């Protein structure tokens, strides 16, 4: 099993979600984070103009069976893409085991 963590623009979230559903990725967890990266955002506040590289983003954590890894990544790469600096990153790592609390079952079945 793999954990796919994607950090994307908040404005792309809805599209990504819809497309993931289409390719059969129906379960995931997300939260909002602040990203520090190349992108800068202009702010003005009481006469001080400044650029901040602290940009609000959405963090998606998706655990999938290995056969779903590629399609999930490809979908995010395609949909979350705008071509402008700040589109975000995807990180992939291993998951040893998964459990479904409702049933107590474990293994790849819990991700379906």
């Amino acid at each position, binding site marked *: 099993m793999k954990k796919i963590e994607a950090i994307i623009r*908040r*404005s792309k979230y*809805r599209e990504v979600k819809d497309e993931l559903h289409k390719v059969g990725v129906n379960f995931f967890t997300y939260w*909002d984070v602040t990203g520090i990266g190349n992108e800068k*955002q*202009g*702010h*003005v*506040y009481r006469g001080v*103009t400044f650029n901040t590289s602290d940009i*609000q983003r959405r963090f998606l954590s998706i655990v999938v069976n290995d056969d779903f890894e590629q399609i999930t990544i490809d979908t995010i790469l395609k949909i979350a893409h705008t071509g402008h600096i700040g589109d975000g990153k995807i990180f992939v790592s291993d998951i040893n085991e998964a459990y479904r609390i409702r049933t107590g079952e474990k293994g790849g079945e819990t991700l379906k």
Partner: protein
Amino acid sequence: METIFTVNNLWMMVSIFLVFIMHLGFATLESGLTRSKNTINILFKNVMVVAIGLLTYTFIGFNMMYPGAEFAGGFFGFSGFGLHLPENGLTSAYNIGYTYWTDFLFQAMFAATAATIVSGAVAERIKLNSFLLFSVIYIGLVYPVTGMWKWGGGFLDTLGFYDFAGSTLVHSVGGWAALMAVIMLGPRIGKYNGSSRAIEGHNIPLAVLGVFLLWFGWFGFNGGSVLSADPGTVSLVLVTTSLAAAAGALSSFFTSYAIFKSYDITMVLNGILAGLVGITAGADLMSVTDAILIGLIAGVLIVLAVIALDKLKLDDPVGAIAVHLVIGIWGTLAVGIFGAKAGWSQFGHQFIGVLAVGLFCITTSFIILIIIKKTIGLRVSEEEEIEGLDIHEHGMNAYPDFRTNEH
């Protein structure tokens, strides 16, 4: 003799304060019922509209709306730019109820209301500049014209049309423009993809604050429209106003529960406003029972109107069209159905008033909006709309210390 003048004027000044605070009510209601990423934008509009309303009304509006007998026509009048204290403007010779300054300020506070109504309906997608420009023209030129038709002694007044505190002249005037603007802008992105989606308001306590403040302000809006502190009339108006609001709350509560099996607070809040808008045209003509009936009906209508407008894919985030236009019409017609003036002929007058004002407002707001659309544009870019107007137009967040969860 002069003491009663001082008392009356005092009452009108209190009414001014109350009407003023309605702008805070609108600001908080509208920002509460929209998303946090557009909060600064909507507050900005509401703040500027007050300033614009006061200044355009000083410069031109007051003298168009109340040109005085010698300048008034049936459809249009104008007695010159700026404010000019008339002789006796500070004594009861001007008016037993108020000085010239009080007169101006009370009316000026009303003026801004029309544009504030629009502000809610077009929230979350209109360009700031375009909205402000629209407001300047609409408050400066359109609102005073229809106002003059009745309150300035124009043809609707001659006809026998009755609109005590402005169900039509204020609320519908705002409502028609809101309707036109919503049609021309289209819905917010994501609102009608296939079925209608709910786009929840981000801060319900703020919305509740807004409705309480609006009710509070309405005491001055209706109570002040008596134009003197006359104990009997004013206190009756306060009672009819309050009971219509309470009845609106009750019937919207039951109606929305019956339909949705849920206690939707936003419907009850709209129900209160519906009661208030509904009683506004005839607040001084109604008995206790009439007022309660008008409020009850308004509370049912508002729920149905919100649903119907949504079915028609008219995306109005705060329900401004339903409250101010639909119920504005209801309130105006109710003068022909309930209370001291009830009767077919009065109903006819009311109907003509609604129609005349409606046609004029639809036409003028369409023209203004289409010109703005063709020149500087009406709607923000898709990117801006999705990411929020606050960060794009203002470079700020309304709540920078909170971890948001935008939808």
